[in-house]
């Protein structure tokens, strides 16, 4: 759902740009605090992988396709802060080099494709995990459900923003219904792809998955216990 140039009036594009810039600044700060030698290359890989997955448009209805947004996937893999940055980076590369996603709409696109899916997805992922036992199955299931919900939520936010500052005066209900309807279908693909990737990574290296750090780790030696008694 890359927004092209010209869909929104200038004040909405600028407003979204300001919100996005502020959020990315917080993400940079928070992600910096969490990064270590392990997570940094993993975040680079997550961004590259999402670039590849976003190219894979799948059919969702007659004459309509969808592709992964990736916010929820990135958030489960490397956390919502670094995950948002991963997708924002993908959008930057796409906008600058591949003519995908308008440059004046970059703020809107980061909001809709990175920030909202990552944070809505991660909040839901955490909520589901609280209710389920700490197993890799629960991690995979929670990430799929979170990914599914994140897509129509982003579509609904698009409709709300279009109601505020869209270039054409349209019935809010019509845009909302059409956007959420088709993106509920896209969400099914988002859920399947997200669950497949999380499942693959969790089965090989659960210790590398941000949203699964509470699972039993085969490489527990990697994270020194923070509860070790400190001689003061």
């Amino acid at each position: 759902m890359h927004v092209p140039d010209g869909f929104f009036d200038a004040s909405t594009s600028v407003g979204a740009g300001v919100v996005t810039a502020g959020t990315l600044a917080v993400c940079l700060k928070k992600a910096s605090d969490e990064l270590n030698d392990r997570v940094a290359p993993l975040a680079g890989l997550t961004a590259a992988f999402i670039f590849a997955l976003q190219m894979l448009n799948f059919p969702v209805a007659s004459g309509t396709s969808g592709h992964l947004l990736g916010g929820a996937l990135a958030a489960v893999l490397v956390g919502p802060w670094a995950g948002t940055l991963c997708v924002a980076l993908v959008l930057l590369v796409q906008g600058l080099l591949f003519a995908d996603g308008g440059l004046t709409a970059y703020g809107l696109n980061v909001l809709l494709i990175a920030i909202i899916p990552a944070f809505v997805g991660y909040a839901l992922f955490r909520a589901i995990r609280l209710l389920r036992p700490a197993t890799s199955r629960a991690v995979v299931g929670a990430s799929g459900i979170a990914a599914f919900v994140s897509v129509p939520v982003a579509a609904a936010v698009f409709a709300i923003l279009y109601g505020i500052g869209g270039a054409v005066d349209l019935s809010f209900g019509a845009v909302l219904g059409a956007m959420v309807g088709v993106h509920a279908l896209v969400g099914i693909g988002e859920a399947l792809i997200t669950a497949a990737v999380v499942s693959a990574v969790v089965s090989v290296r659960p210790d590398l998955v941000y949203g699964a750090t509470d699972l039993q780790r085969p490489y527990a030696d990697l994270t020194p216990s923070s509860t070790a008694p400190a001689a003061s």
Partner: protein
Amino acid sequence: MRTNTKLFIVAGLLVGLALALFLSPFASSSPDGLEKVAAEERFDGTMRDHDTADSPLADYGVEGVGNEKLGTALAGLIGVLLTFGVGLGLFAGMRVLGGKPNAPPGRSAGSEPAGAPS
């Protein structure tokens, strides 16, 4: 970084490259959800041409490569490698600049030396 983790990163990158190379040429070329809704609800008329529409990689092709499937595959390959490289640089840079609790002398932008006169 453990060898194991390096291996994981390399393997993951290879899978990403394979997806871009071998699957992206066969992805659906139908309009995506937003494009479809914009056409149906008739708000696609205000769309402007992209500022980088004449980029050599515009619309996931490679300028000069006539075969569309090959162009998509190559564009995907370039995009994955580029995103990986820039991402690695960004996150490694963040780790170096932001990961330390005490800013080195010649404080960097954004650090907040508590109570230090400017």
